[in-house]
């Protein structure tokens, strides 16, 4: 390069830097910080950028706006359950403003006695460990041993633990890094992090159990700059995760006897002289990376032809569950079929389905292109729990994996929407009333299951609230999963099943590889349906009113009752009854959720009448004068309202039918007799 070219280049760089500096001052309120903003697009040693690789996706071009690139070189000590790793994080500042600090999640620090996560789990009696028997060797921890910002030197001393959610000073799940110099908009910055990690005995689908490890949330992960601020919550007992899309290149060094599975595609597998092997993975357009090892996995590989290209399916099964590998494969394929047909294509080239260590609290978890199932060595065909878990976790590839909502603040948007699609998909694959259980005459459908989980906590919380602000873990589960599914199933009845399906597809295709908000979701449904649904969303999503309508009274009396009184002769059976009856059907809105409903009234001459009630008043009454008596009245005769907390009082049959009670009583009687016989067998 000649001297004049160097001079010219220097002038251009200075001018560009000055221009960027000015823009930063305008964009960011932190004027002082912005004035020092530096361009780190070119770090020493070469140009820095996020790779635009497509090795792990069936697409010729990147599918997301890639903000992060993680390069991690990790060594796992299978005896101590520790990880020592070096991480290089390249971050592309697309926030439009200078960034002078970066928060990082250190999730594994949640598994310490004074962490917020443990406080909450202990308070709610939830999660996976009986804390009274919790031993220090089962704790988890995550420590950044050194952190260098390229161009700014070692900033380890600038790290400071923060607790933005609850002020718990003992909580070390978020650490904030104050930079020496802010990062200008559109600039890149590289962090070189060395960290040491003690994995916990599994909690919240992360950690070790026996000789198994699930590496989830295992590396320092930067927060998301969202809506003008950093979004980096502490780890809570009921929260999941939120991260930016990018590229992952991860080298995992593990003992050679381990069978390994991970997010992304496997690039290489090299044996080392020290008895370890290094397996390298690459992931595109994903926002997390998880892996697992166990020396006992049995592996099945298969290929699924998706709309965008072949997908390598990999099933890592426990030896005692090997006879269920076909079940796992079948439900994976069926679920892929449905999601691709209904919502959109699955673009990744791999999907790893892990059957985790039994009793490891690792069942049922989602990571990009990597899910864990949940089964047991004894699992009759009629119990569909493995199918349910695999379907649900696969669904998260869409609702979380690609449509990457904020799981800390809008948990219902991933868990709930996923529960809704779970109902739809499992109804289609396994039958509406039998999708959970179809064994020895016993049946249970997924939609009933969702409704039951919601009904028990219906008045506790709203859907639209932080996941860590729920009354309890039960309420979190019932509302986030059960209520959302019920709300969306009910919405189907309002806008029509086909319209809802179209809206869901539109939402997915529009917001995949982004971080949509709840308003994005609701507006999409309103746009596709062409209906103003605020009245519904305000109650169902933003509020916590409970839906409970009842048929409170059904009565038919002869109009000329006074004449009847004089002549008490009953009409002969079979003879035409010319009596004119005055009939009343009263409906009662027992709680605060207001919604129009249909009512079907049946008469003893076979006539059916459909009525509409807007539900605005607390009650309403329909009256009829007919030569027929009312036989029954039923609210929501099409059974489209999934949100009703009590379905028993939605109908009233004038002539009581005691047979269902007798049937149940027979079962209860049998159990009572049998138990008393058993008691007498042993005691006397």
């Amino acid at each position: 390069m000649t001297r004049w070219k160097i001079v010219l280049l220097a002038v251009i760089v200075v001018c560009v830097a000055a221009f960027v500096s000015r823009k930063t001052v305008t964009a960011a309120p932190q004027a002082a910080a912005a004035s020092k903003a530096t361009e780190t697009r070119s770090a020493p040693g070469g140009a820095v950028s996020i790779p635009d690789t497509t090795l792990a996706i069936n697409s010729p071009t990147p599918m997301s706006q890639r903000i992060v690139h993680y390069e991690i070189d990790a060594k796992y000590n299978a005896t101590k359950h520790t990880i020592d790793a070096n991480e290089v994080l390249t971050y592309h500042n697309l926030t439009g403003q200078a960034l002078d600090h970066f928060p990082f999640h250190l999730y594994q620090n949640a598994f310490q006695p004074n962490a917020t996560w443990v406080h909450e789990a202990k308070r709610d009696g939830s999660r996976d460990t009986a804390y009274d028997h919790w031993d220090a060797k089962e704790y988890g921890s995550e420590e950044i041993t050194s952190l260098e910002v390229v161009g700014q030197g070692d900033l380890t001393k600038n790290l400071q633990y923060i607790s933005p959610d609850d002020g718990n000073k003992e909580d070390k799940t978020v650490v904030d890094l104050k930079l020496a110099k802010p990062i200008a908009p559109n600039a890149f910055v590289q962090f070189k992090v060395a960290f040491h990690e003690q994995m916990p005995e599994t909690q919240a689908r992360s950690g070790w159990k026996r000789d198994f490890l699930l590496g989830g949330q295992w590396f320092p992960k930067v927060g998301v700059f969202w809506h003008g601020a950093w979004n980096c919550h502490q780890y809570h007992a009921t929260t999941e995760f939120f991260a930016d899309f990018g590229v992952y290149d991860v080298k995992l060094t593990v003992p050679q006897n381990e069978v390994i599975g991970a997010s992304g595609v496997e690039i290489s597998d090299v044996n080392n002289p020290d008895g370890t092997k290094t397996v390298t993975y690459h992931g595109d357009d994903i926002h997390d990376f998880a892996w697992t090892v166990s020396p006992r996995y049995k592996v099945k590989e298969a290929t699924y032809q998706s709309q965008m290209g072949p997908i390598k399916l990999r099933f890592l099964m426990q030896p005692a569950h090997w006879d269920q590998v076909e079940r796992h494969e079948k439900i994976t394929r069926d679920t892929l079929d449905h999601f691709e047909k209904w919502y959109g294509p699955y673009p990744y080239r791999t999907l790893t389905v892990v059957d985790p260590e039994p009793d490891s609290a690792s069942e049922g978890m989602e990571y990009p292109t990597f899910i864990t199932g949940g089964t047991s060595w004894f699992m009759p065909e009629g119990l569909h729990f493995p199918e349910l878990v695999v379907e649900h976790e696969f669904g998260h590839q869409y609702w979380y994996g690609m449509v990457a909502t904020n799981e800390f603040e809008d948990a219902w948007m991933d868990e709930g929407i996923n529960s809704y699609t779970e109902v739809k998909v499992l109804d289609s694959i396994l039958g509406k009333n039998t999708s959970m259980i179809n064994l020895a005459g016993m049946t249970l459908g997924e939609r009933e299951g969702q409704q039951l989980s919601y009904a028990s906590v219906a008045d506790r919380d709203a859907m639209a609230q932080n996941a860590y602000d729920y009354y309890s873990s039960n309420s979190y589960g019932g509302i986030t999963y059960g209520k959302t599914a019920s709300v969306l199933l009910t919405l189907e009845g309002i806008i029509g099943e086909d319209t809802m399906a179209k809206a869901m597809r539109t939402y997915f295709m529009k917001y995949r590889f982004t971080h949509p908000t709840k308003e994005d979701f609701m507006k999409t449904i309103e746009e596709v349906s062409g209906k103003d649904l605020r009245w519904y969303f305000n109650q169902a999503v933003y509020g916590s009113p409970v839906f409970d309508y009842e048929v409170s009274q059904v009565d038919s009396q002869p109009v000329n009752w006074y004449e009847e009184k004089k002549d008490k002769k009953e009409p002969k059976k079979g003879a035409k009854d010319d009596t004119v009856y005055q009939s009343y059907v009263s409906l009662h809105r027992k709680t605060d959720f207001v919604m129009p409903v249909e009512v079907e009234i049946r008469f003893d001459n076979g006539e059916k009448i459909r009525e509409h009630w807007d539900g605005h008043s607390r009650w309403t009454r329909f009256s009829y004068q007919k030569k027929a008596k009312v036989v029954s009245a039923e609210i929501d005769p099409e059974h489209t309202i999934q949100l009703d907390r009590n379905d028993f009082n939605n109908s009233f049959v004038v002539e009581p039918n005691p047979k269902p009670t007798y049937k149940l009583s027979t079962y209860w009687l049998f159990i009572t007799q049998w138990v008393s016989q058993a008691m007498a067998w042993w005691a006397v």
Partner: protein
Amino acid sequence: MNSNNGLLSSGLGMVMRNKRYIFWFWLLNLTLAEFGTAAFRRSAHAILDHSLLSDKLMHSFDIGVIVDLLQRPEFGQTDSMTTPALYFGFLFFLFTAIFLPGVFAGYASTYRLPREDFFRACGRNLWRFIRIMIIAGIVMGVFAGILFNLNGVVVKKATESTNEVLPFELRMIGFTVIFLIMTTLRIWFDLAEADTVLNDQRAIRRSIGSAFQHTFRSLGRLLTTYVVSTLVAVALLLGGLLIWMKLVAPSSVTGAFVIAQITLLLLLIPRFWQRGIAVSYWQQRMLIPVAAMQPAEATPVVAPPVPVAPTPEPVPVVSGSPNPSEETH
């Protein structure tokens, strides 16, 4: 026929000769359970009878509807359903304890035991049985506590293994061992009960002591018979449930009730069979032999010389007079 078959068949023979006891105990069981389930029925009627939703119960065993019903506040707390059932279950156990002496007496009897004798045996042995039950309860409770805890420790240790099925296998092995030990204890106290009633033993310690010796003297023989009868009970229960599931239409309440009650009636047989075995064993081995009466030496009687007389007139037979050969005592 070996000795086990002998005990099994003689025990079963006693049960079959006294089928009425099975019937009465079943009736007692049913009646008490009816009371025990009244609260459940009342609550269910109030919610289900006028609702169209309850129709779903008639087409299958819809778990969703049942769980929904159980968690309705107006249905009441689960405790309010289970507690009466347990109380009446306990009553059945008490009544069993009261009437069991009569059953033992009936089984030992070679003729149909009159009602008053049955109840006399019950009354006479009531306090003895209560004492035996208390001792049996303590012994069995201690054994059960130790064995179940031991099993728990072993199983917990097994969960550290990478063999997922091992804890289950060990639990099952543990249950089998516990079952055999508890059955041995049950044999011991069954024999003690039989001895108390049939020997009219006031000092129950003697019955318990004697039964203890006999239990371990003939353990193999007795345990085999008890295990066989228990397996029959398991087969009856599984068979009944299978028939219920396969043959009874979900909508048939009467069918379900009949099959359920036949199963429960039959389920009473194995336990009464075991009591029959205990009585049979008692008769064979524990009955204190009574020294046989030796017939008196026949002393020839020298008849005095009778003068030859004319042949007497035959006595006319009076209609209705007792026939000595048909006289019963």
